[in-house]
């Protein structure tokens, strides 16, 4: 189904100067328009923070199986040393993000709310934090499988939030034909400016990362989609556009969840990823700009993914900032680096406010997938009281995958999980649009997450 009257051909080869949103109907249907709230940090340059006294590296920092620890208490580690080996194919190694001594491997608060095994490292205060001398692989001489393996060994995961291991996406099964790489620069979550600042300050890295990924996949066409509320990012990416590659930069309508893979593919290519299938199925691989920049960094410095850019923002923090921080830095230290809490700080969210997790412990460390830390002031937090569903239908009008959240919510309240499954609960990506629009403040995404867990725990049919 085509919307907006722009042909596939026009989308692929848009004429010059077609970035106007009137001409490019680059969008998906439904979705919501939350306040952007990005002004707090959108124009603040990324800065480094001093190393904290302790970093805690979770062994499960990616989607898939957790890494297996290969260090023990008392070991001396340098920055970039392997702490955990990947366990299976959909798994990545975890590296020490600071030089120091392994104190303990223990259960530690994880950003998802659970306690998970983690490696605590007492940071050596007098270390120059230089990585061990290493060979930087020359990416142009490496064959695609070797490139993918190098990316895997560097522990690169999707930095947009889901933390899916990047090497899995870059090595599709042989029978899948990939024709386009999409770079996701939407950053549709309110408040966050991580990807925005990455594009403004490191556009060359984004392009280099994209180039490496295109080599991995053997693809000649790429598109970079950026929401139109980031004109400086679009300009920076356009300015550094390589002339020898077929890369198109397109401005996209500002709408949540524009950065969801399926929505981005729909907007940029007008292809619908079939229900229950991956983007590969329509010949597309989507990567976040921060992931692309990280891949470039891996091949520039030889250093694995040990630090990331993160936005610490919200009205509950005194000095909102964009920071380069070592992975495993604790929330407490992050907030300290930003001037501390304001008096009315109330809720701390890892990730964006639409999909992020509220944190209970200030000792929770940052993981690779944490794209932002939002400290909400008391006045910004949502009321906790719910009303009965009045069947207004706003959730149906906002659901980007055209589910019926109203029906699903009613079923969830009655714990009728199986019926939810037949009503396509599996297609829900927990984007939060329904919960955002619900006037009765019914915690729909929470109910759906609960149902997904309940269905997963269901005993297997005999």
């Amino acid at each position: 189904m085509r919307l907006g009257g722009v042909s596939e051909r026009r989308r692929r080869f848009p004429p010059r100067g077609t970035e106007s949103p009137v001409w490019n109907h680059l969008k998906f249907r439904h979705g919501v328009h939350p306040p952007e709230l990005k002004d707090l940090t959108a124009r603040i340059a990324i800065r480094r923070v001093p190393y904290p006294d302790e970093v805690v590296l979770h062994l499960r920092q990616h989607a898939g199986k957790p890494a297996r620890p290969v260090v023990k208490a008392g070991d001396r580690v340098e920055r970039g040393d392997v702490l955990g080996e990947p366990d299976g194919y959909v798994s990545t190694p975890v590296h020490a993000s600071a030089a120091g001594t392994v104190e303990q491997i223990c259960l530690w608060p994880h950003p998802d709310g659970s306690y998970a095994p983690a490696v605590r490292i007492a940071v050596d205060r007098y270390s120059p934090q230089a990585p061990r001398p290493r060979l930087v692989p020359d990416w142009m001489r490496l064959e695609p499988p070797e490139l993918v393996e190098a990316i895997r060994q560097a522990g690169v995961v999707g930095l947009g939030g889901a933390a899916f291991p990047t090497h899995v996406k870059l090595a599709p099964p042989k029978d899948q034909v990939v024709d386009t790489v999409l770079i996701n620069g939407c950053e549709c979550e309110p408040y966050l400016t991580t990807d925005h600042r990455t594009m403004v300050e490191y556009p060359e890295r984004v392009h280099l990362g994209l180039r490496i990924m295109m080599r991995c996949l053997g693809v000649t066409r790429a598109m970079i989609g950026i929401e139109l509320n980031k004109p400086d990012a679009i300009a920076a990416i356009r300015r550094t556009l390589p002339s020898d590659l077929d890369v198109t930069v397109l401005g996209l309508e500002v709408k949540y969840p524009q950065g969801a893979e399926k929505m981005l593919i729909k907007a940029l290519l007008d292809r619908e990823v079939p229900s229950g299938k991956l983007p590969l199925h329509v010949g597309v691989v989507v990567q976040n700009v921060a992931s692309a920049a990280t891949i470039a960094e891996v091949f520039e410095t030889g250093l694995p993914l040990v630090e990331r850019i993160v936005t610490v923002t919200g009205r509950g923090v005194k000095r909102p900032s964009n920071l380069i921080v070592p992975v495993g830095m604790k929330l407490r230290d992050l907030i300290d680096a930003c001037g501390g809490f304001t008096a009315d700080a109330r809720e701390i969210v890892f990730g964006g406010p639409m999909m992020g997790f509220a944190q209970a412990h200030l000792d929770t460390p940052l993981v690779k997938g944490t794209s932002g830390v939002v400290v909400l002031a008391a006045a910004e937090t949502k009321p906790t009281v719910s009303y009965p569903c009045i069947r207004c239908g706003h959730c149906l009008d906002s659901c980007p995958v055209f589910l019926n959240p109203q029906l699903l919510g009613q079923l969830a309240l009655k714990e009728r999980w199986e019926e939810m499954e037949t009503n396509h609960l599996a297609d829900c990506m927990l984007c939060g649009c329904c919960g955002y629009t619900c006037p009765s403040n019914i915690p729909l995404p929470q109910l759906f997450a609960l149902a997904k867990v309940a269905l997963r725990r269901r005993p297997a049919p005999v």
Partner: protein
Amino acid sequence: MSNPSLLITASPHLAAGDSTPKIMWTVVASLAPIVAVATYFFGPSAPLVMAAATAGAVVTERAFDRRGTLHDGSAVITGILLGLTLPAGLPLWMAFTGGAFGIGIGKLVFGGLGQNVFNPALLGRAFLQAAFPVAMTTWPVPAAGGWWSLRGDIFALPFASPRALETVTGATPLGRMKFDLQATPLLDLVLGTTSGSLGETSGLLILLCGGYLALRNYLNWRIPASIFAAVAIVATGLHALDPARYPGAAFMLFSGGLMLGAMYMATDLVTSPVTNPGCWIFGAAIGLLVVVIRIWGGLAEGVMYSILIVNAFVPLLNRWTQPRLFGSAGRTVRS
């Protein structure tokens, strides 16, 4: 560093800013101009009748109020809307009973807000229509006998037959059309200087107030749009067949309770479909039934029964019009 006492809630951590009480009270506020105009046309009887109906609704809601549901405003809406469908001269105890019936039988027995199948205000009115047919069809003419005079024996005691006051009563435009084949000038209909229920007079004002709610997205504009379209199309077709017998579209749209019904009754969030295609079908079916009842039925007016009948089909409409899942070929069939 001071540690704040942390709040832990599930995502999303932002909200669009609408809440159910806010929607309900906004609807109440949007009814204020209509109430004011009814008072202007029908004198002090109008606010008294509406207040009695609202009191019936609110008292009943309060009586069964275990969860503090009164402040959400839905009972007040039901009361005012019911009041707007009543004639100005209705004894107050009848209006009160109607409000109590609408909330008690129309809403609370189903489980309260969000659970009812039928529009509570219209159910209350249907009850009054069946119980007190004469009182419900005595239409005082606006501005007869001075603004201050009461339009009927509204203070009649329960179950006492109301005294006949010296008021002028007149048939509604629909009644005159149906039984006397006599048309009413369109301007009178649009402005509301005709006889009828309290709120079925000024079509233009109701259109404006409802339009405001549609702009705020507090009602689904597809419902009134499809009702108007269905009524206009069918009425125009019939009018072309026999202009003397069948009135034209403009008369059909602006006479009787159609405006109030289309803008405020049919669009009740709870009793209308949740899907947009469902809303189109819902509205079209109501519009069709209105014309059928008005022209071929035994009653002069059919808005109330049309909406109540189609209300009953809403669960079915919801099931038929499930959205097409993203990334699936056709409309998905549900169990």
